[in-house]
């Protein structure tokens, strides 16, 4: 359309008398909207006779190039938008991961608190244990003391038995003496019997006495032997008692030794528990530090989450702006399309 108009404009140009009114008359069939633009174009042609065309070709060339560059711009956009989409996915993934870490941290914090409670309980129980051990040691000391008393008693028994043994010995000696005397008496009665016999009838009364004395000495001898027999048996009993007393004393000694060993073992237990006690203190300290660290991490994590959320919000804004920006591209595309429609018409 503009080409046709420019040709006509050149023709009228030659005359150099054409006015704008005449141009309007010539082109009154043109759509209203185009007239002002057309007039401006024609004005150039009319006023500058050296201009052979009205920039129609230049405009076409530039419009075509705008189209080409615009397509290139859109493909650049695709790189940016795709990148944005990837970042968005990445950020969403990161946010989810951070939230998961947050949950794990919560569990960890919960567990650490639990562990601290357990450590406190162990600490308290160890305190109780120590007290029990102290009581045990005190009881043992009392037992040891009592054991010593028992030992003393057995020692006294032993002394008494010895004393008894010597007394029994004395009695045995007396019994032997008595036996000796009985033997002597027996000999004497024998002698007396013999003399009595010699004395004949006058000696009969003496012989009876002599017999009686013999009977007495025999009985005495028998009694003395019984006493000696009884004493022997008693001496055996005393000996056995003495041995038992010695055995008992040894048992008491062994028990005392064993108790003393137990005392040492209790001391060892006490020392071991003290060490555990000290270790528990470290555990408690360590747990408190852990909790404080967890608390710090949680604060830091919350900051990261907040930042992440605000970044998400920024990204959402960015994405919303993508459509608004694209609307401008769309408008330009529509302008280019209208230009193309104009060229196609001409």
């Amino acid at each position, binding site marked *: 359309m503009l080409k046709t108009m420019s040709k006509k404009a050149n023709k009228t140009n030659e005359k150099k008398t054409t006015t704008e009114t005449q141009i309007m008359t010539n082109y009154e069939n043109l759509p209203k*909207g185009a007239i002002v633009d057309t007039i401006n174009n024609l004005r150039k042609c009319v006023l500058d006779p050296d201009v052979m065309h009205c920039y129609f070709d230049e405009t076409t060339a530039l419009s075509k190039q705008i189209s080409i560059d615009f397509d290139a711009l859109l493909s650049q956009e695709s790189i940016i938008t795709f990148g944005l989409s990837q970042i968005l996915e990445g950020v969403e993934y990161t946010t989810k991961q951070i939230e998961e870490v947050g949950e794990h941290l919560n569990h960890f914090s919960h567990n650490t608190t639990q562990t601290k409670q357990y450590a406190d309980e162990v600490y308290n129980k160890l305190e109780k244990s120590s007290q029990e051990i102290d009581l045990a040691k005190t009881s043992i000391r009392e037992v040891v003391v009592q054991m010593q008393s028992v030992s003393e008693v057995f020692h006294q028994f032993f002394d008494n038995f010895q004393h008894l043994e010597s007394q029994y010995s004395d009695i045995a000696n007396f019994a032997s003496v008595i036996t000796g005397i009985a033997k002597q008496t027996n000999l004497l009665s024998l002698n007396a019997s013999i003399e009595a016999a010699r004395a004949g009838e006058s000696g009969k009364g003496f012989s009876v006495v002599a017999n009686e004395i013999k009977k007495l000495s025999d009985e005495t001898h028998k009694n003395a032997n019984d006493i000696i027999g009884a004493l022997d048996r008693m001496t055996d009993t005393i000996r056995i008692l003495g041995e038992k007393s010695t055995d008992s004393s040894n048992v008491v000694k062994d028990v005392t030794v064993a108790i003393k060993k137990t005392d040492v073992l209790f001391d060892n237990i006490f020392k071991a528990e003290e060490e555990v006690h000290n270790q528990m203190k470290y555990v408690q300290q360590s747990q408190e530090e852990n909790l404080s660290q967890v608390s710090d991490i949680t604060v830091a994590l919350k900051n990261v989450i907040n930042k992440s959320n605000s970044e998400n919000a920024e990204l959402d804004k960015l994405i919303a702006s993508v459509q*608004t920006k694209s609307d401008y591209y769309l408008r330009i595309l529509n302008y280019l399309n209208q230009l193309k429609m104009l060229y196609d018409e001409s």
Partner: protein
Amino acid sequence: MKSLLFSTVEEAISHIENYPNEGYVLHVPISLIHKMSEKLTSDVVLCSTSGEYSANGYKNGSITGFSFDKAVAEIVEIVTPPIKSKQNLETAYQKVKNNKNAFMLLLLDGLSGLEESVISTLFFIDKSFKIIGGSAGDDLLFKETAIYIGKKRVKHVAIFFDMHKRTQLLKENIYVPYGDKLLITSADPIGRTVKTINGEPAATAYAKALSIPESQLADHFMNNPLGKIYEDEVLIASPMKINGDKSITFYCQMMPNTFVYLLKPVNPVDKLENTLDTLNFRPSFLYVINCILRSLKFQQDGTWEKFDATVLNTCPNTTGFISYGEQFYTHHVNQTMVMLAVE
């Protein structure tokens, strides 16, 4: 402004002849529009539809519309390409631009895919100036739509209204986003076709996102369109058809390297009540443009009755039509309801 409803062409023409001092915007079934245009003056604008809206609610096969004081309106034809009409449009705009109650009604061809072309040509209009529009329909025949200024058939038309009463524009979206964002990785915007989503063929990726077999995808378009993500809102883009190469053609332009959401429907009557609650005044006149896909959904779900009751309860003086697309300020959208309220 007065809502009108006629059962026949004769009834409509008779009314117009009885009130020649008024201007008219009428929504007419495609089967009747050509015949009707033969007897009209340039104060009457006709627009073919895929259903109508009236003081009795949703209709199909009637003639609806409204009359207005000629003095407040300026009718401007828009040709193809629309840049050729830019000067006329700007001239008309300049007369009303300082009136914050003024608005522009757009009635555009619904089958040539030029809605964004028209809207982008309105670059001289302030962003806050009220623009409401609908794309003409043809009763689901998808052959040709028609717009007339009197006897003259035009491609598109803009009417500037220099209102003395308060006006308000409302938009309603009965879909909400769900699931992850999708990235349109390649598209032909002028051809309204999306070729790949997330690097995969569009139909494949769309079906995957809905967790349905690809063969069932087309059945889900009505209930699960896509939403363009803006900072404060989501605008609906309706898929039209799946092409042989698994690209999807839409009822609006789609840019590559943009993010979209899958959408799912919410209760429309609840949403309508929320929408009407945002009215700043009790309206004396309501002009309602509903997308054909919303209309089909309402017909399927039996929602029209409740919808009608709610709207007409707010304002009995209501009119409008069922369109192939809606315009709201500088956006061309689908499956949306746009509404003009006049105090």
